[in-house]
C-alpha cells in the first residue's frame, strides 16, 4: 500500500535489527549509518563495527548526508564488505561508484530507505521536491514494506525559477552572476571532498606540472576550478546536492549541476546512477550525436 507519511521509529528499528544480524553473521565488517550528533536535529554519519552498539544508529527526516562518499575513503575502503544506509538518491551514487569500478557490487550491502524528502535546516531541499527515486532502486534490501506514493503532482522543478532567471539574462549578465558567485570561493574544497564521485587520489586542482588551475583563490583560479569541477561530473552527478549544501560560501552549485544533468538527459537521454549496465555518456558515443554546433 502506498502512503506519504513514514513512521521513522519503525524504520530506525528495522535498520538496527538488520545491522545486528549483518554484523553478527560477519556478512559485513562495518555498517555506515546515521547517529546522534552534537547539535540536536543534526544527525551525523556513524560507523558501527561491532553488533553491540547498533543502537547508536538512528533514522529520521534530518538524515540528509549522502553516505556513499565514505566508501572510497582510505580508512573505510579496506574494511569491505560494508553495509550502508541509503536513500534513493544515495543509491544512485552507489550505482555510479560500481559503474566506475571503485567498488564491487557484491562488496556493498545497501539498506534502501523509502524517503519522502529530508529536511535541511527545516526546509525541504530542491532535490526532494520532484524526487523520482522515493522508493530506492538497485539496492540489496528495501527496509520496509511500505511504498511511498511518488505520484504526487510533479510541480515545477524548484530550481526552474532560478534557471529561468539565468536563461533570461544576457551572456554578459550571466557571466557577472557566476563571477560574483565564484569570487566568493575560498577553495576549501568541501564541494570536492563531500562528493561521492570525486574519488581521485590527487585532484587536477593540485597538479602543478603544469598548473591548469591556479591554486590561488582569485577570480581566475576560482572560475577555472568551479568550471572544471562541474565539467568532470557531467553525466556522473546524481544531483544529491551535498556540494551545494556544504559550500560555506553558499555558491549556487546546485544550479550548475542541475543544468548539466538536464543537458545530459536531453542530449543523450541518460540519467546517471540508474542502471548498472549503462556507461557514463562521455565514455561512449553514438554515430547520430548532435553536431549542428559544429561547422
Amino acid at each position, binding site marked *: 500500500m502506498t502512503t506519504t507519511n513514514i513512521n521513522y521509529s519503525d524504520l530506525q528499528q528495522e535498520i538496527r535489527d538488520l545491522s545486528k544480524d549483518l554484523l553478527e553473521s560477519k556478512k559485513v565488517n562495518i555498517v555506515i549509518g546515521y547517529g546522534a550528533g552534537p547539535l540536536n536535529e543534526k544527525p551525523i554519519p556513524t560507523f558501527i563495527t561491532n553488533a553491540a552498539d547498533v543502537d547508536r544508529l538512528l533514522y529520521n527526516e534530518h538524515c540528509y548526508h549522502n553516505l556513499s562518499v565514505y566508501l572510497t575513503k582510505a580508512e573505510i575502503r579496506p574494511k569491505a564488505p560494508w553495509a550502508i544506509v541509503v536513500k534513493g538518491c544515495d543509491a544512485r551514487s552507489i550505482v555510479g561508484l560500481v559503474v*566506475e*569500478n571503485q567498488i564491487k557490487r557484491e562488496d556493498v550491502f545497501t539498506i534502501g530507505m523509502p524517503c519522502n524528502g529530508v529536511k535541511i535546516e527545516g526546509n525541504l531541499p530542491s532535490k526532494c521536491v520532484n524526487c523520482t527515486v522515493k522508493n530506492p532502486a538497485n539496492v540489496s534490501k528495501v527496509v520496509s514494506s511500505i511504498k511511498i506514493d511518488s505520484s504526487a503532482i510533479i510541480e515545477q522543478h524548484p530550481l526552474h525559477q532560478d534557471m529561468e532567471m539565468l536563461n533570461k539574462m544576457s551572456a554578459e549578465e550571466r557571466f557577472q552572476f557566476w563571477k560574483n558567485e565564484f569570487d566568493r570561493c575560498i577553495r576549501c574544497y568541501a564541494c570536492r571532498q563531500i562528493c561521492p564521485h570525486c574519488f581521485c587520489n590527487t585532484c*587536477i586542482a593540485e597538479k602543478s606540472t603544469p598548473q591548469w588551475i591556479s591554486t590561488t583563490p582569485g577570480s581566475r583560479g576560482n572560475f577555472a576550478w568551479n568550471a572544471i569541477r562541474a565539467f568532470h561530473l557531467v553525466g556522473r552527478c546524481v544531483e544529491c546536492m551535498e556540494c551545494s549544501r556544504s559550500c560555506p560560501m553558499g555558491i549556487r552549485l546546485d544550479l550548475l549541476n542541475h543544468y548539466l544533468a538536464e543537458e545530459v538527459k536531453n542530449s543523450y537521454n541518460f540519467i546517471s546512477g540508474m542502471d548498472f549496465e549503462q556507461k557514463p555518456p*562521455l565514455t561512449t558515443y553514438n554515430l547520430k550525436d548532435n553536431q549542428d554546433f559544429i561547422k
Partner: protein
Amino acid sequence: MARIGVFVCWCGENIARTVDVIRVAEAMKSIPGVIVSLDYKYMCSDPGQKIIKDAIVNERLSGVVVALCSPLMHEKTFRTAAKEAGLNPFLLEVANIREHCSWVHEDKEEGTKKAIEITRSVVERVKQNYELQNITVPITNRALVIGGGIAGIQAALDIANGGHQVIMVERTPSIGGHMAGLSETFPTLDCSQCILTPRMVEVARHPNIKLYTYSEVESVHGFVGNFKIKIRKKARSVDINICTGCGICQEKCPQKKIPSEFECGTGFRKAIYIPFPQAVPNKPVIDREHCTYFTKGKCKLCEKVCGPKAIRYDQVDEYVEEDVGAIVVATGYEVINSDKFPEYGAGRFKDIINGLQFERLASASGPTEGKIVRPSDGKEPETIVFIACAGSRDPAKGIPYCSKICCMYTAKHAMLYHHKIHHGKAYVFYMDIRSAGKGYDEFVRRAIEQDGAIYVRGRVSRIYEKTINDGNGNEVKKLIVKGVDTLMNETMEIEADMVVLATAVKPSPGAAQLAQKVGTPYNEYEFFSEAHPKLRPVESNTAGVFLAGCTQSPKDIPESVADASAAASKVQILFSKKELERDPYVSIVNADKCFGCFSCEAVCPYRAISREEIKNRKGEVVRMVAQINKGLCQGCGGCISICRAKACDLIGYTDEQIWAQIHSYPADEAEIETETGDEEEDK
C-alpha cells in the same frame, strides 16, 4: 638551462617575401634559453643542414627549432640531420611559418608578427621536450592486397617474388578486374587477356600467395607491422577444392537471362556461372538472388549434373582472421552510370553504350565474338559517334577532374571499329586530346590519319532517336547527334547508328567504407588520399597502408603497374627490417595517480589499455590501475582527455608542452619585440 638553437629559413622567397625572416631570427634571441638564432636562404639544402649540424656540435645545443615549411614536409629530414650531429631527433621541432603564415598573408608586418609568435611557441614547446627513442615493434612479414585487378596482381606478384607471404582478397568471383574485360590495349593493341591471363595464373599458382576470391575485408585492427584482418568469405555454394571447372552445371542451368556484370550488361550469364572463360579460379559460383533453388526452393539441376558432386547449397559465409604487416589497397575504378546524361537520352536508347561495353563488343570472347553490332537490332553500325569527356572535367556533373584514360581508349575504339568495319565512319567529339604517354600521340595520329577517324573539336549538345527509311524502303532507327565544331565554328548534325560515351572514372563502389575500415583519409570523390602528391604518391598517411592503381586516382594500365611495383617495393622496405621502428608517441600511465575508473579503457580505439593489479607486500590486490600496451597504442590521446586526474600523458604531446605553447602567446599585448627593445628602457 636549455640551450636552444633557432634556424629561420627564407625558402628562397616563399617565406622571405611576406615575412621579415631577419627580424624573426632577431626576436628569438630575446627568449631566455635561446643561444643561437640565425636565418639562411635554403635551410633544407645540404649547406643549410650543415649549418644546423655545426651549431649543434659547436654550441652543444639541447634543443633545435627550425622555422620553415610544414613539419609534414621536412620534419624527418631535419630530425635525421640532428641525429647525425648527435642530438636526439625528438629534441628538434619544426615551426610552420610558410603554409600557415607567409603563403596565406600578404601584409609583411602582420606576417612577421605571426611568424615570431609561431616560432616562439615552438621554442617554448621544445624546452619541454625530452630525449626519446623510437619504439621497436616486431613485424609480420605478410602483406594483404585488397583488390585483384592488374594493380593488385602486380603488387602481389612483386611482394611474393620478394619472398614474402601475400594474402589477396578479391570481391568478385575471379581476379582480373576491368582489364580482363578489355579487347586490346593501347598503344600496342596487344590483346588484353593475352598479357593478363598468364599473370592471373601466376598469382593462382604462386606458393607465397593465398587467394581469397568472392571475399571482402570485414575489419582491420592493429597498426603497421601488426594488422589483424578479418575477411568474410562469401558463400560460393560450390566446393572449389573438388570442382574440376568442367562447366556442365553452367550449360545446364535453366536461368538464362541474368545480365552479366563482367559483360557490363551487353551479355547474359546463368545462375551458376564462371564470369569469363579465363577466370582464375576457374570455378563457378551460384548467384543466390537469381538461382531458382534459392528463390523458389526447387530445381537443384546443377547438383544433379555435377560429376564430382561439388555443389554445396548449405554453404554459409565464413570469417577468417589473418595477421599481416602491410596493406596494399588496389580496389581499382568504376565508370559513372550513363543515367547521369539526360541530354544524351540517359540510357533510354539501347545504342548509346559506354567505353567498357564497347570493349565487350570488340572482344573476341565477348557476347558478339568481336563483331561490333548495334545492341538494338544487331546490325553493323555505319556511323559511330564517340564522345570523349562524358562527365569528366565537368563540375556541373560533380566531376571536375580529368579521367586521363578516355582519350587513349576512345582513339583505340575508333581504330578497332575501322579494322572491323572498313567502310564505317567514326566521329570523335573531344575537348583536348591528352596522349602524353610513350608512343601515345603517334597512336592517336595513326587513328586519325590511317584509320580515318574524324576528330571534331567540340561538344555534343543533344542526342535523340529518329526513324528514317534508309533509301531501300525499310524503316531504321537512327541516333541524331547534334554537336558543334568549334574549330570550323559551325554546328553539326550526324545521323549515327551508335554512340559510345567515354564516361568518367570514379573509385569502385564502397571505397569510402573500406577507407574508414582501414583508417586512411580519402578525398571528396572517395579516391584514397596519398601521403604527399609528389614525394610519397603510393603511401597513405596511415603507416603500413599503401595505394596502387586507380584507387588513388584515374590511371592507365602502365601507370597502375608502375604504381603497384612502387607499392610493392615500399612493402619490401618495411619488411626488410626484422622489427619496425615506430615513433615513440604513446601514452604512459602514472600508477600513483590512477584511481582505476577505466574510462580510458572504454575510449581506447586500439584496445591498448589493460588492467594491472597493484599488490601489497602480502600479495593481496590493493587496487587496480590502467596499463598501456606500448605496441598497440597509436598515440591518439583519447585516454588523456577522458582522465580526470591526468594520471596519463602522451609522449610527444605532453600536457607540459601544450601548456608551454598556450602560454607562449603573450597574455597582454606585450609585444615580444618590445622585450628585446627593453635595453633602451634600462639605460
